[in-house]
């Protein structure tokens, strides 16, 4: 019951926050200089008042700002995010088109980051100050500080272009057509289609961009895991457990790791939120048609409905992830549930 109340409260916050974000982004898009008419009409068309008038009327840009806002919120309440000025298609369907590509890549990246980040963090903590620890720390610092676009070019150059180990840019090889859309996640949809080679091909295309995107979050997870584990290991109850003769590995896995994972969970949640917002440069280099590229093109075109749509999506991501992380705190540490 308590848990349900907690989730209900979170959902109510979520709606209020989304309304706030929509209003804020709407105001910001109107405040910043940028005219969608100039951004989207050709130099010739801009000289034709009839064409300019027709364009403004089509997208409601000829209405007073207050009327535009009321209309926007009214449509939003009906789950209508408006029409993209750049593509003339509903923003919702545009997001539905490009978001699955981002979700697929983000989930793959966070999986790599979490598994290897925690593993490296544990190894580093167990072998504190050893050469192994130094090496892991060097890797994590590199992961955090390396510019992703440069790393992307580097891995593509070596592992695709020079060594031919991994496939190149894109979501699928040229020999495959896109699977019928069920979830929009190519790996899953290909499995659902029963086409295993295509699913494996889609999976293989995730490796290089996924690794590049995972590098930063993995570095953070490694460092957080290491420092928290070391803190926990110096606590009294660990000393007691050690006195009872429990081995080092058992001590870490059964007694220390659970307590050290709570801050790690926060880092994973933030990392996932960050990845779900799209990564323009990595998406560009890997030819990945995700939400980052869509947002970038929308900004260039002063496509305000699309920009607001992306902002709402990113806000929604963080809110959902934070809610899930809060719930998971309770699962990992029962004391949080009691509070």
């Amino acid at each position: 019951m308590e848990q349900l109340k907690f989730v209900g409260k979170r959902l109510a916050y979520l709606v209020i926050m989304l309304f706030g974000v929509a209003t804020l982004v709407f105001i910001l898009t109107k405040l910043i200089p940028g005219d969608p008419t100039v951004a989207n009409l050709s130099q010739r068309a801009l000289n034709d008042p009839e064409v300019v008038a027709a364009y403004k009327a089509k997208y409601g840009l000829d209405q007073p700002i207050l009327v535009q806002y009321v209309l926007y919120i009214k449509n939003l309440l009906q789950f209508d995010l408006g029409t993209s000025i750049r593509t003339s298609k509903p923003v919702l369907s545009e997001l539905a088109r490009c978001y699955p590509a981002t979700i697929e890549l983000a989930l793959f990246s966070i999986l790599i980051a979490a598994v290897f980040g925690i593993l490296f963090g544990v190894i580093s903590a167990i072998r504190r100050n050893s050469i192994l620890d130094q090496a892991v720390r060097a890797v994590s610092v590199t992961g955090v500080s390396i510019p992703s676009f440069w790393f992307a070019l580097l891995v593509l150059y070596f592992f695709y272009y020079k060594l031919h180990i991994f496939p190149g840019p894109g979501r699928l090889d040229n020999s495959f057509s896109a699977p019928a859309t069920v979830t929009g996640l190519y790996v899953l949809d290909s499995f659902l289609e029963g086409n295993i080679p295509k699913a494996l091909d889609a999976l293989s295309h995730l490796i290089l961009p996924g690794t590049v995107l995972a590098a930063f979050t993995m570095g953070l997870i490694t460092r957080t895991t290491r420092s928290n584990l070391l803190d926990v290991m110096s606590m009294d109850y660990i000393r007691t457990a050690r006195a009872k003769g429990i081995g080092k590995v058992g001590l870490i896995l059964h007694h220390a790791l659970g307590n050290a994972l709570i801050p790690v969970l926060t880092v994973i949640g933030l990392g996932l939120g960050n990845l779900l917002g799209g990564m323009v440069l990595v998406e560009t280099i890997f030819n990945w048609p995700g939400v980052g590229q869509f947002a970038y093109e929308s900004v260039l075109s002063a496509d305000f409905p699309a920009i607001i749509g992306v902002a709402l999506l990113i806000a929604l991501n963080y809110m959902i992830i934070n809610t899930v992380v809060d719930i998971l705190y309770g699962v990992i540490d029962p004391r949080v549930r009691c509070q």
Partner: protein
Amino acid sequence: MKKRYLAAVLSAVLVMSCTACGGGQDNNASAGGTEESTEGAQSSGSSTVVVAMGSGFATVDPGYVYEKYPPLIVNACYENLFKFYDNDSAPEPCLADSYEFSEDNLTLTVKLKEGITFASGNPMTSADVLFSINRCKNLQGNPSFIADTIESMEAPDEQTIVFHLTQEDSAILSKLTYSALAILDSAVVKENGGTDAEDAATTDTAQAYLDSTSAGSGMYVMTSYIPDEEVVLEKNPNYWGEATNVDKYIIKIQPDSNTQMMTLSTGDIDVALNMTDDTMAELAGAENIGIINGATKTVGFVMMNMKEEYSGPVSNPKVQQAIRKALDYSGFQIICGEGTLTPYSVIQSGFMGSKGERATDYTNLEEAKALLAEAGYADGFDVDLTVSDLDMEGILLTDLAQKVKDDLSQVGINVNIVSQPWAAGYGDAYRDGTLGFTVMYWGTDYNDPNVQLEFLPGAVVGLRAGWSEEMNPELAALYQETMAATDNDARIAVLEQVQDAMYEDGPFIMIAQAPAHIGYNSRLDGVAISDPYALDVTLINIK
């Protein structure tokens, strides 16, 4: 228990990685060079060609297209009355069989070829032509201007169209080659919400349909379009003409030139349209790769407003000439890359009537200093140069502005570069003619030298530089004279007059024709730079 979980997770990741790597091994195969066939997958056999282009686009509905790349797809799936079969030649009949101008040049009668069918199997008639052109005009979209000189049309029979023009228009045949005036299967488009009525801007709903498939008579049919990802074109089974031996095109959107270079080298793509000097250098000497460096008709120019209130000393014709003399044109060519040209004057090299290139030894700093002294600025002056965030075929305008600054510093003009985003003020100021001194570019709307007439006094771009008709009525009059010259020799003569008049006079300095760098698999024949279509896929064959 936890140990088992951890082990399971690690094993899963390992298995995933291994299987995935296995999948990746197959990718060394050429995009079209091998018969790679996989269960349930399409085969990219030898008759498939993969093309990479640098950016996505808003639409492929011919009635709305105006961006750089959609003409590649429109030209493959639709046809026009006339077509450019060669980048630098005159338009030739395509769907048209013959044409004739009236004596006063105000009426153009076009006879259609017989036996032409659309991909749907419907026969093409003059009614389809009327529908397509009226639809483009009435949609009031970006390309509607192209039909501005068409006052009305009539179709006396199924094979004849009569165009009544608002004025003499020597470029009308070139305009009829433009993608926006491609001929649509009117029955199919109407079935899917299309209309050519006067209120088409608000009532036509066919764009969604035409973004999902094509409705033309071209060599190919668009079978799939995933925005910002790829377009698939497959051979039109009902094509009336002689088709090439390429059965299928996959057009990939690959914004990064390094990515294009790598995918071309590994054989994942066959044509890379957006290479750069650097990435071309990587391909030098590579086996099975052909390269093309050549000038496009997109031209970068310096604009010096004629109104003193906006440009200060730069409005002085002597100062303008001094700037013209001070610029280092070969330096601009180096910045823009191999294949760049500096046109002689306002008409780009490659266009009918062009006088070619500006002499490489034109720059003369002493003359420039003398001209400044004559104008009363012997010690130079300070001036703002506004520049936008746009790029010209991948060349940042800010780079060109920096070069202008460096060159002018040699003659004592201290340029202060002011950056302003295109959509946040620059576009409005440029259109309103309030920019004093700037570097900008001009992409040709349609492949005809008449597009450059807009730089004349009193015309669209001329007015943006505060250059009104009254300032040079003789030169302004050449606009109409060129429009009236439907005879090519007569038009060339007037165009040469225009170029000579603007060689050392006026508010514009043409600094560089941007280059195109194309890399392609040498198994292909017919790959070439195309200003009207980006790449004319209907001329490509596999050797």
